[in-house]
């Protein structure tokens, strides 16, 4: 076997091994079972979307993967190791960007926070910050405070700070939930192009079913009380996705119907 073939095989094997795995993960908080016996594997490079009615534990599942919670029983692992604390290669984009940014630091300063935490030397930070701002479509806004920016810009800034961590995995908790439809579509495409190019693994929590199908390689629907998997759909839509063509694709419509029926059934 040639070296190249062996390398390809090794890469394929690595791809098969899950990056993040929930093994019968259960979480109880304050006497309530939030998540019960969750089994879920996230493959490296995968874009996984989690949907579900409110209170189904989708944000909790994300926080388990982030290491912000530890499971009461079962395990959540990253590359086979139990996740006990947040790790630098896993970045979290919170929904409430207004609270997740430092109001006393400018856009550049907020990105710098992540670079400082990774001990990037001060003289290298400037260029890195500029590149990151350009990457998320905020060039020329380095000296603005978050409060001087629109919601969409603030969320871009938070994404830039997460990218400054150089994560292999991006956990996104309803990141566009508070944004208007146009801004949301723009950011969906940007997140896709940012993560697909770098083969970043993404777990994306949303309550918007169309968004989940549009973005994901796979969509998981959770059942509430306690949270567990109710439906799992592979999204076999061509990439790159397109806001018009993808959303008109018969497969898109079929998945959408299936997912809507599932959510409707859980609401009873």
């Amino acid at each position: 076997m040639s070296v190249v073939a062996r390398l390809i095989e090794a890469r394929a094997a690595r791809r098969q091994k899950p990056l993040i795995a929930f093994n019968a993960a259960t979480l109880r908080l304050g006497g309530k079972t939030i998540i019960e016996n969750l089994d879920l594997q996230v493959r490296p490079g995968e874009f996984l979307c989690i949907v579900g009615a409110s209170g189904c534990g989708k944000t909790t599942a994300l926080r388990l993967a982030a290491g912000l919670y530890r499971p009461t029983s079962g395990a959540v692992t990253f590359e086979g190791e139990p996740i006990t604390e947040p790790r630098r290669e896993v970045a979290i984009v919170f929904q409430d960007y207004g609270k997740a940014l430092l109001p006393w630091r400018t856009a550049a300063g907020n990105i710098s926070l992540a670079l400082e935490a990774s001990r990037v030397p001060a003289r290298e930070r400037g260029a890195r910050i500029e590149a990151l701002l350009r990457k998320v479509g905020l060039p020329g806004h380095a000296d603005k405070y978050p409060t001087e920016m629109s919601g969409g810009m603030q969320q871009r800034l938070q994404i830039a700070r997460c990218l400054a961590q150089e994560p292999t995995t991006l956990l996104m908790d309803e990141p566009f939930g508070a944004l208007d439809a146009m801004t949301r579509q723009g950011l969906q495409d940007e997140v896709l192009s940012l993560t697909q190019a770098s083969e970043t693994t993404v777990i994306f929590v949303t309550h918007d079913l169309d968004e989940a199908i549009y973005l994901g390689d796979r969509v998981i629907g959770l059942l509430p009380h306690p949270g567990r998997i109710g439906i799992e759909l592979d999204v076999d839509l061509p990439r790159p996705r397109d806001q018009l063509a993808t959303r008109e694709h018969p497969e898109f419509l079929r998945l959408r119907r299936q997912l809507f029926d599932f959510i409707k059934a859980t609401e009873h």
Partner: protein
Amino acid sequence: MKRAAILWRVASVLVAGSFIAAWQLVADLRLVSPVFLPGPDRAWAALVRGFSSGDLAGKLIGTLEHMAYGWFAASIAGIGLGALIGSSKMMRAYVAPSLEFLRPLPVSAIIPVAIAMLGLTQGMALFVIAFGAIWPIMLATIHGFAAVEPRLYEVARSLQMSRAAIIAKIALPSALPDILAGMRLSLTVALILSVVCEILAGLDGLGHWVLLSARAFRSADLFAGVILLGATGYLTSIAVSLVEQRLLAWQAAAR
């Protein structure tokens, strides 16, 4: 808008000017005996004389020193203790009742205790001023540290920031508006207590000057001292406000 601001400024100067004019009038008409009430002209002359003869400047420096040392000591201790208590829910629960007992205690009540323990010394003055001035700073710091957005702590955790970095880069800047407001309040307390200590313990300062002038019926000197104390309070407060504006420039951006 800008013109309105200028007009307000002019009006406030006019009000101050008419106060001084009224004071001059009352003095000139001898509605109050000149032994007790000098006119602004005599008070001003006493002020100039006090500075040119040299001892008023010394008294002013004495008061400023008492005030500054006490205020700095209160700031350092208040911010340190406030951060310690404010950043831990358990500490807040344990310490809060004791604080609620100590806080409303009139500081003047502890002066005899301080004199008994430390004598009529600079150390006594420092202790009393710091003890009085610490409360606004410490309570504001506790509040500021307790009110840090929890989401920011999660951001810090996900960035794996050290405890020291979290305090320096997240908690302290977040609490800074509260801390500075507390420091501005306690500045006034420090000035009041400086004067009280100087009067009670005979320490060198404007309080002592005012007391001696009153006893000797040198009303012009007395008023010169009072005017100087007012100016001290006013100018130090402005100085702190300027520092505050600089440090909190990001808040102006939010408006």
